C-alpha cells in the first residue's frame, strides 16, 4: 500500500475515511433529498432515480466539494440541473405517465383541501418555475441561493417566482382567490 504522506495515511485508509464520510452524509441527507426530488419530478420512481444519480455524481466529486463547505447546495444544484437536463433530453416526462402520489398524502383539514389543489397546479408549472417554487417555498432558500443553484440572476428568480404565483392563483380553484377567502372570513 502506498504511503501518501509522512503522517502514515495510506490510500486505502483515505478511501475508507472518504467513503465513511460520504456514507454519513448520504444517510443523513437522503430523506430530505428524496423529498426535494419528488417535488421536482412529481413521482417517486423518478425522484429515487434522480437522487441516486445526483448522489453518484456527488460521490465522484466528493473530494472537490466538501472543501467548499456547501455540499447541500452543490448536490441540490446537481439535482436541479440533472432534472432539467433530463427534461431537455426528452424522456423524463414520458415516465410521468405513471405518476403516483406519495404513500401517505395528507389533506390539511384546516384549509379544506385547498392546498392539495395547489399541488396539482404546481405540477403543471414549467420546469424552471417549478424548481424556483420548490427551492424557494419548500427548501426556504433565499432568492440569492436559488439563483446560485439555478445559475440565473436574482431578478429572474423573482420574476419566475412571481409568475409561478400568478399562475397558481390563476389556475387554482376559486376558493383560493383572495376575494373568496375574504368572503369566507
Amino acid at each position: 500500500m502506498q504511503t501518501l504522506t509522512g503522517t502514515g495515511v495510506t490510500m486505502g485508509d483515505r478511501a475508507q475515511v472518504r467513503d465513511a464520510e460520504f456514507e454519513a452524509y448520504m444517510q443523513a441527507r437522503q430523506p430530505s433529498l428524496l423529498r426535494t426530488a419528488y417535488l421536482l419530478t412529481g413521482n417517486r420512481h423518478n425522484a429515487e432515480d434522480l437522487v441516486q444519480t445526483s448522489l453518484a455524481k456527488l460521490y465522484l466529486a466528493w473530494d472537490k466539494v466538501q472543501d467548499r463547505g456547501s455540499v447541500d447546495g452543490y448536490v441540490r444544484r446537481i439535482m436541479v440541473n440533472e432534472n432539467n437536463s433530463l427534461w431537455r433530453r426528452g424522456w423524463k416526462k414520458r415516465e410521468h405517465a405513471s405518476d403516483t402520489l406519495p404513500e401517505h398524502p395528507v389533506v390539511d383539514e384546516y384549509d379544506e383541501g385547498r392546498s392539495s389543489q395547489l399541488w396539482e397546479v404546481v405540477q403543471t408549472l414549467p420546469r424552471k418555475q417549478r424548481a424556483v417554487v420548490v427551492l424557494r417555498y419548500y427548501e426556504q432558500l433565499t432568492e440569492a441561493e436559488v439563483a446560485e443553484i439555478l445559475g440565473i440572476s436574482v431578478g429572474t428568480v423573482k420574476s419566475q417566482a412571481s409568475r409561478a404565483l400568478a399562475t397558481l392563483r390563476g389556475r387554482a380553484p376559486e376558493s383560493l382567490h383572495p376575494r373568496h377567502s375574504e368572503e369566507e372570513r
Partner: protein
Amino acid sequence: MNTHHDELEQLLGRQLHDQVDHLGGHPLSLGDVTGRAGRIRRNRRIAAGLGSAAAVAIIVPVAVFAGRGVDDADRPIEPAPSPDAPTEVARTTLTLTGLERGDAPGVEYFTPDGVVLPEDGLRRLDPSYQALVPSPADGGWIAVDPPRDSLSYLSEDFQPQGGSSKTAGLATTPDRAWVSWTATEAGAQTLLLHSTTDPEAGMAWDFPELPEVSPVGFVAEDRVVFEATDRKGSVEAGIAEPDGSVTPLPGLVGVMSADPVEGRIALQTTVNDDASGCSGVLDPAVSTTEPIWETCDHSLGAFSPDGRYVMASSPYGDGLGLTRLEILDAGTGELVAEFTQRRSSQIALVMPVWESADAIVAVGVEGETQTLVRLGVDGTLEEVVEPMQGEFGDLYFYFGEDRTRF
C-alpha cells in the same frame, strides 16, 4: 405588503410539505451509489478513450424516440477513419487570474444595469428582457421577455411599441438578419420567420396547438429547424421549408443548434438512464437520420458563425456549470481546442456564445468573482471586462437567450 400574496406563499409552502413529509422509500446504500458512480465514471472513461485523439469521427446507431438509447450505448462504437491527418490541438488551462485584458466583447451582453452594446456601451433596459435583436427595418429592437413568455418590439431607445405576443423560443441567424419564433394563440401555433432588414420578407408555418413548437436554428436563411414537444415530453424535430412543407428529422433525442452556412444540425442522438448520452452533427442534405459524425465524449452547443466549428463540453451537467469547453471541427468532430481546469480549480464557464468565427466569449465564475473571458480557437484566453465581485448566487453578466445553447 400584499397579504393575499403572503397567504398563497404560506399555503404553497405548507402544501409542498404535506405532499412529501411522509414520503417513504427504500434507502440507498453506499453500494447503490458507488455502483451508479462507477457506471458514470466508466462511461466517461470509455468516451474519453474514444474521443481523446479527437481525430476520429464516431458513428453509432441512432436511438429512436421509442427508447432511451440504453441498448445502443452498450453496442460497440466503431470509429470511422478520418479523411485528414490530425491537426494540432490547442490546449489551455482555464484560469480567471492574471489574464491579459482584451478588447471589449463584440456581442451585446446584459448586466443588472442594462444591456452593453458593442458600439454604444451601457444602455438602460428593463432587466426582464433577456435577448435583444436589432431590427434595422424599423429602427428598433426585437426583445424577448422569458419570464412572461413574450416577445416585444422596442423603439430605438428601448421603449415598448406595443404588440407584444405570447411566444416560445427565439432563434436568429448568426448575422441576425433573420429571426424566428413561435406565436401562440388559442388553439393554434404559428412558426414565424422574419427578416430584420426587409419588412416584406418572411414566412409562416401553421401548426396545431400541440405539440409545442419551438425554433432552434436555421440550416439556411429560409429553412428553420424546430423541435415539437408533446405533453409527455416526447420530442420530434423537423425543418420548416420555404415551400410551406416540413421535413421530419426522425430518431433523435433533441436538437441543440443549427448552422445556416453549411446547413448542419447539432443534435443529441442517445440518452442513457444514467444521464450520459451521445451527440452528433447531421447534414440533412446527406441524410436526415444518420449523423455525419457522432461523439459520446461531448454534448454539443452552437456552431461558429461561419459553420466551421461547433462548441462542445462534457456530456454531463455536474452542477458547477461548464468546467471544460472544447471547440470541435463541425465537419469531422475533430478536436481543435480545449479549455480545461486544474483538478483543484473551481472555475465554471456559463453561457458561452460565439463572438466571431474564431472566438467565444463566456461568463467566468470563480467563487464570488465573475468576469467575461474570450476563448480563442487558437487556445488564447483573455479577460474582456473588469471582474466583478458579485453577491453570492447572483449571476452578474449574461448573454442573449438566442445566442446561448448550453
